[in-house]
């Protein structure tokens, strides 16, 4: 009973995504970033050598809140093969409008500065994992170049 209480109160246990990140990823601070400006976006997303999933979200959007932990845990599983860049559409309005974010959440997969895919709305974990795996594999890039 005591152990259970401790488990519940420990914030690391309440947020499984954090545990995963801490245990499985060598550099946890680099695979999930928050975009601070258009220049920041350019540097960390457009010029990134690693594929990036851009999460356009809003603080007032409930589906966004549900999506975040699912997304973070999957990104952490990928062990640095893909970066998650979070963009608050109210803070980075121009960026969101440029990427035609009319409703949130929107996920935009970017590889070598090019938009590969978009996923609109709340997704379940399985679909998210499949989508991210597919886009980080080499095939998707070939498809786009064709």
């Amino acid at each position, binding site marked *: 009973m005591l152990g259970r209480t401790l488990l519940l109160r420990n914030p690391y246990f309440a947020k499984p995504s954090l545990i995963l990140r801490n245990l499985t990823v060598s550099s946890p601070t680099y695979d999930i970033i928050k975009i601070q400006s258009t220049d920041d976006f350019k540097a960390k997303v457009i010029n990134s050598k690693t594929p990036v999933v851009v999460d356009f979200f*809003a*603080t*007032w*959007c409930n589906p966004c809140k549900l999506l975040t932990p699912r997304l973070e845990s999957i990104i952490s599983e990928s062990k640095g093969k893909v970066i998650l860049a979070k963009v608050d*559409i*109210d803070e980075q*309005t*121009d960026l969101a*409008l440029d990427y035609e974010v*009319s409703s949130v959440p929107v996920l935009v997969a970017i590889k070598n500065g090019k938009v590969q895919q978009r996923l609109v709305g709340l997704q379940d974990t399985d679909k998210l994992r499949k989508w991210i795996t597919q886009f980080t594999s080499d095939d998707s890039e070939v498809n786009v170049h064709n």
Partner: protein
Amino acid sequence: MTLFNNFRKLSNFVKPLKRTECLIVLSRRTFASGWMCCGRKAKLVDPLTESVCDEDGTYDYDLAVLGGGSGGLACAKEAINQGAKVAVLDFVTPSPQGTKWGLGGTCVNVGCIPKKLMHQAALLGEAIHEAVAYGWQVPSVDQVKINWSSLTEAVQNHIKSVNWVTRVDLREKKIEYINGLGSFKDPHTIIATLKNGSQKELTAKNIVIAVGGRPHYPDIPGAKEYCISSDDIFSLSNPPGKTLVVGAGYIGLECAGFLNSLGYSSTVLVRSVPLRGFDQQMAGMITSEMEEKGVKFHHRCIPVSVEKLETGQLRARWLNTETKEQGEDIFDTVLLATGRYALTEQLNLKAAGVNVLSENGKVVAETEQTNVPHIYAVGDVLEGRPELTPVAIHAGRLLARRMFGGASQLMDYDNVATTVFTPLEYGCVGLSEEQATQRYGADNLEVYHAFYKPTEFFIPQRNIRNCYLKAVALREAPQKILGLHFVGPVAGEVIQGFAAAVKCGITMEQLVNTVGIHPTVAEEFTRLNITKRSGKDPNPASCCS
């Protein structure tokens, strides 16, 4: 001919200014093109740098709209549909308590939308108690209470999502949005002061003033320091607690109504009469319903002072203007709802040559056009027009069609329906009994009325004393209807359809020949048969209660 002369005079006056403007724009453009070399998309180019300002008088925009509220946005969107190039300026000066908000104007941010949501929260709270009478087993129903911060968060989240949709809409329609406070430099030039204090200039062929209004603060000690207004209540960080509402217009009554139903004790100071301008018999129904629900009213009272106590609470003092007696009490919140003023002062209208302001600073413009032919106004800023979102939208849209679509249809401000969203709602369309009497004389009117019992009210034994409706009609057959008034649940939904009928000129003969939908509250209109003149009892027959 006069119009044409005005145009000529104006263009002569404007020309030298425009030449100077060309120089500024050109130099800015050179600077901007250097800055834009790293730009990505043409559509991101600062529109002001695209300015073309030829000698023959081309402007940056066909239309500049000052104010991104209901009226301004509707006008801008319709202008775009008509092929015009449009810019919208919108800027919210924080309230004295520091509340600010996003794009979309009063209705979306601090008016109709949050008000309706809080009204709904209040109705749901009442419904929880009624549910017990219908057999729902609600655990500890006496302890049911509102979580104020959950409510405000939900309301604010909805508002922010609407702000975003509005923003996206402007972008998709290619309306230039400038988050700056607009003022006139000359009849065709607007200066936009941005948040960081920097200024932008733009020129427009036509300009629409749609700046709306903000709450008025009475000149008493403590008003701006300690009191809130409707600008603040919907995002208030702490539960309002025991609240004094100063003012008994529809905003004051709606706020007092939902606060009381949410469990916050509410007191209303009424200066003259409640709901001035509305049918006073119906206004009386609304206030008696509120009193029966626990709202306290102090009639003929004006506020004197508000001071802050060491406890953080507020001591409010007021004066009864008839008895000269003073009253006071201690509140957690004092909400001022003593009217709204138009935001025309900051526009520097003199520079534009607009000189049609009324005493209270509103724009007098019969057909939305000011004395300067290319400067118009829509929405709450207009003198003598109903301050209602759909009115502003309709007027703005028609105006855009006249400006750019060759249309001639004018806004018809008569027979506009509205609803006061007090816990028991009051919906009306057309004339009040007082207005009708004044216009046609009591002898020429027939007033049909009835109390009624909504079916749903029987089981929870809800108060039916104030469920009342009336139709004010001409006495002469076929008795054209001048006004319809309804106090009861969902009054807004009830009156909307009848408003269309009134617009079509419905008569009492036609109304009573309409077959009702049973059981609804709206059908009561089709059952009206007792006239006030007959002196018969307007109360419904009943088996019990």
